[in-house]
């Protein structure tokens, strides 16, 4: 067993695979460590969206825009069809109050270079002939796209292995010990791995890895339940979200639905068609720890949202439900960067529902950070350090509406 590496990446979800790939491309010797199977966490239990419209104006949106351009080139680069497709997206608006919020949001996003507009009811029906009469307007962007996360992972893995990736699955880390200028990772079977640097890409489990080196990583699991329909023809030009979904994502306290369960489950309507024709009806955002069950109450609320917006779905079957843990950081932004008081220990986690969109850019940024290249973004904004200043956290929460 090979034991010495430049970088050990912990967590073989889509983020870990991306990080490993971009590091290998820079010529590093990389080992990827996984507790279960590849993509067995959130990466295998999410939707397929590169949804730019849901990104907060600012660094998250800027990174998503660059990430989208990287995705466009990725099928060719990885020599794997990642099933990239651009259908555009719409966030449908039900009342005047939502309209005001979305107008604000859209004008902010435009400042950061996203092509997005508000369209009136007549134009909404042209694009979504099956949508309910009750909506009053919608946002519309031609940019929102999708990929198949399984194919992306397959591509990174195959290309990574070509570049010399060492991958160890079904392993359990017992201890992480700092040495003078490297880390010693002791496994359950007392084998060990030595690496100059560690990147923690373990998503919702990132805090557990942090515990091993005595740091507090403010990332918790948020459960997202999703229903899958049978394969049906495309219902409208684009995938669809509700303005309420944006509220649930950005500021759950403002959810107005009278049903207390609705609020507790953090329900927002997300409706996207996967490449094989199944629609995914999402989603909840629940703080219930690592409980991965799907339950009848949530699924019922989700499908009722769906028929509220698209009455035609009454006649469609659901065939499956699933749940994944979105790694939610305290302020809704990912944590990407080195931990200053633990030199050589990096984090790339906490992307919550933005993971798929941010995959290529996060992997690339990690590789650039480790090889000390010039980076365009202000990485301080994503560094874990930001949580040390408590008042900053409160402030960012307040602005994030």
């Amino acid at each position, binding site marked *: 067993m090979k034991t010495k590496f430049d970088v050990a990446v912990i967590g073989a979800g889509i983020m870990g695979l991306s990080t490993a790939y971009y590091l290998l491309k820079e010529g590093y010797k990389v080992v990827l460590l996984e507790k279960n199977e590849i993509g067995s966490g959130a990466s295998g239990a999410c939707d397929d969206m590169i949804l730019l419209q849901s990104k907060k104006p600012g660094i998250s949106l800027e990174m998503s825009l660059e990430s989208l351009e990287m995705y466009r080139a990725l099928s060719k680069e990885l020599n794997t069809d990642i099933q990239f497709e651009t259908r555009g997206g719409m966030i449908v608006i039900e009342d005047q109050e939502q309209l005001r919020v979305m107008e604000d949001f859209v004008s902010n996003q435009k400042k950061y270079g996203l092509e997005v507009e508000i369209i009136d009811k007549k134009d909404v029906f042209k694009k979504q002939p099956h949508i309910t009469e009750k909506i009053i307007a919608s946002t519309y962007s031609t940019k929102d796209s999708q990929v198949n996360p*399984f194919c992306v992972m397959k591509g990174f893995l195959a290309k990574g292995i070509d570049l010399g990736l060492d991958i160890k699955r079904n392993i359990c880390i017992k201890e992480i010990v700092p040495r003078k200028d490297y880390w010693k990772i002791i496994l359950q079977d007392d084998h060990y791995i030595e690496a100059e640097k560690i990147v923690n890409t373990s998503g919702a489990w990132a805090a557990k890895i942090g515990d091993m080196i005595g740091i507090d990583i403010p990332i918790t699991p948020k459960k997202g339940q999703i229903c899958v329909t049978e394969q049906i023809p495309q219902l409208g030009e684009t995938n669809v979200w509700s303005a309420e979904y944006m509220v649930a994502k950005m500021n759950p306290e403002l959810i107005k639905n009278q049903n207390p369960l609705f609020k507790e489950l953090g329900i927002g309507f997300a409706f996207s068609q996967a490449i094989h024709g199944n629609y995914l009806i999402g989603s909840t955002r629940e703080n219930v720890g690592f409980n991965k069950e799907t339950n009848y109450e949530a699924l019922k609320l989700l499908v009722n949202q769906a028929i509220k917006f698209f009455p035609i779905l009454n006649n469609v*079957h*659901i065939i499956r439900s699933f749940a994944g843990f979105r790694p939610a950081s305290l302020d809704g932004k990912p944590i990407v960067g080195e931990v200053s008081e633990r030199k050589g220990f990096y984090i790339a986690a906490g992307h919550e529902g933005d993971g798929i969109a941010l995959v290529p850019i996060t992997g690339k940024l990690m590789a650039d950070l480790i090889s000390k290249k010039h980076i365009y973004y202000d990485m301080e904004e994503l560094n874990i350090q930001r949580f040390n200043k408590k008042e900053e956290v409160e402030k960012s929460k307040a602005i994030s509406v």
Partner: protein
Amino acid sequence: MTAVLKLGIEVLKMKEDIICRCEEITEQEIIEAIKNGATNVNEVKRWTRAGMGLCQGRTCRRLIERILARETKTSLEEITPSTYRQPVRPVKIGILKDEKE
């Protein structure tokens, strides 16, 4: 032998039996996924879509478990079965409609 004939023989040699009828996934594709490292039914499903169709693996999951056992030379009891999720069978969304709304 002409190239076309050679190709024809290769195709015949492949295990073309369809294992997942909903998604039309062949035994060969499943064996390929196992060769690429899949060790349980969930992994085979993720890499090939076998079991992701209308019946959600009700027909094929047992077959896939057997192929896994055979190809990885493991006993059937040691193969981790796939995750079971509701609904047990396809349900028309209209049935779940909340009349109050």
